[in-house]
């Protein structure tokens, strides 16, 4: 069975194309940002949001694995972590490009840059742990436990440390005053982009879960641990 039908693929592809067009040609650059640099918000924020979402999904499925001991949960957690790395790298790169334009330096250990590097480290450690264990049930259990303990630890840098240091990072989308301060055209493109990226992620995620499951079944049939 297909994860996404032809109609769905057409809608998703057209949607992404429209978002791309609008991000560069429809929305106006925001005030108080150097040149056209504010356009990065249409890509940076969705990828950062998805790397956090994927992390949440990995932790959620890890918890459910420990509860139910169903290997499907482990497939889902592993797929979420793999895609999380991809989007986390994209968020890091886009953020770094923006930093270069705004502050003339790709990397300046802004608290938010530090947090995203920590998230990358956690993802990397999680995937490294998975590779180090051959037996499927043991791999599933130990990596699930690690994902959950990491889930407890990461928010400390994400939320607590940025307050201990001054950050150059622009206000988050919903700022400290609890309002969204964007001009209407930027707001429209921004939320369209969030929806489009989330849908793209949902599709990739479903595909990866399915592929992981197939590989696992195949290796079970072949009689070896690796496919």
């Amino acid at each position, binding site marked *: 069975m297909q994860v996404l039908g032809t109609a769905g693929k057409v809608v998703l592809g057209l949607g992404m194309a429209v978002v791309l067009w609008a991000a560069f040609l429809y929305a106006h650059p925001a005030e108080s940002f150097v040149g056209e640099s504010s356009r990065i918000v249409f890509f940076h924020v969705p990828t950062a949001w998805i790397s956090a979402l994927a992390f949440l999904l990995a932790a959620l499925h890890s918890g459910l694995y420990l509860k139910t001991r169903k290997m499907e949960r482990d497939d889902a957690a592993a797929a979420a972590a793999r895609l999380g790395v991809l989007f986390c790298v994209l968020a890091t790169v886009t953020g770094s490009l923006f930093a270069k334009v705004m502050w003339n330096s790709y990397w300046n250990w802004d608290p938010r840059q530090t947090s995203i590097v920590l998230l990358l480290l956690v993802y990397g450690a999680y995937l490294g742990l998975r590779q180090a264990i051959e037996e499927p049930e043991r791999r599933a259990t130990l990596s699930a436990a690690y994902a959950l303990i990491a889930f407890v630890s990461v928010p400390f840098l994400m939320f607590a440390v940025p307050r201990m240091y001054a950050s150059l990072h622009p206000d988050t989308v919903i700022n400290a005053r609890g309002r969204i301060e964007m001009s209407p055209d930027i707001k429209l493109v921004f939320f369209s982009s969030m929806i489009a990226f989330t849908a793209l992620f949902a599709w990739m995620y479903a595909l990866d879960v399915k592929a992981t499951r197939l590989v696992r079944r195949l290796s*079970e049939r072949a009689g070896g641990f690796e496919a």
Partner: protein
Amino acid sequence: MRLVAENVSRAFGPRRIFGPLSFATEPGRVLGVAGPNGSGKTTLVKVLAGLLRPSEGSVRLEGPAGARLSVHEAAGAIGWCAPDLSLYGELTPAENLEFFARVAGRPRARDEVDGRLASVGLDPRRLRSIRTRFLSTGQRQRLKLAYSVLSDPAVLLLDEPGSNLDEAGHRAVAAIVAGQRERGSVVLATNDPAELALADERVTL
């Protein structure tokens, strides 16, 4: 208490080790587990002990009034002696037994521990200050037997209990099995015909 195994099997990844099997132990009786090398005896005993999760099926303890417990909940109800069992090499035999009695919540006095050592043919006074890692393999096997019945378990799981033992050692195994009959049941996995003769029933893998 009865140890009940229901459709139990274990696989490591795609490789099935044994099962599915169903059986139950009865108080006062000895269940023999026979089978050639590689047939999964050791893995089965570990699953019964709760040291390995069964891939399918369940293992539980059933009390007299039909009360059910998972093997994990019944601390001290199961005794285990197997080739995979190791005691602490840096502790003396008596310290080992004292430690395991204490963590299981049933502390034993020195005299009692010494009595347990003597019952498997270990001289408590001569071994007073000798660390377990300096014992001979046979002496260590005797210590492991003493460990397995330390908490007066309802179910005793013995996996090749006679390995590395001399004649007197084999008699100690027989005595332990006989003593356990008074208290509960025994699962005895072995390839030794003399030991299998102690069994009332037999499961062959």
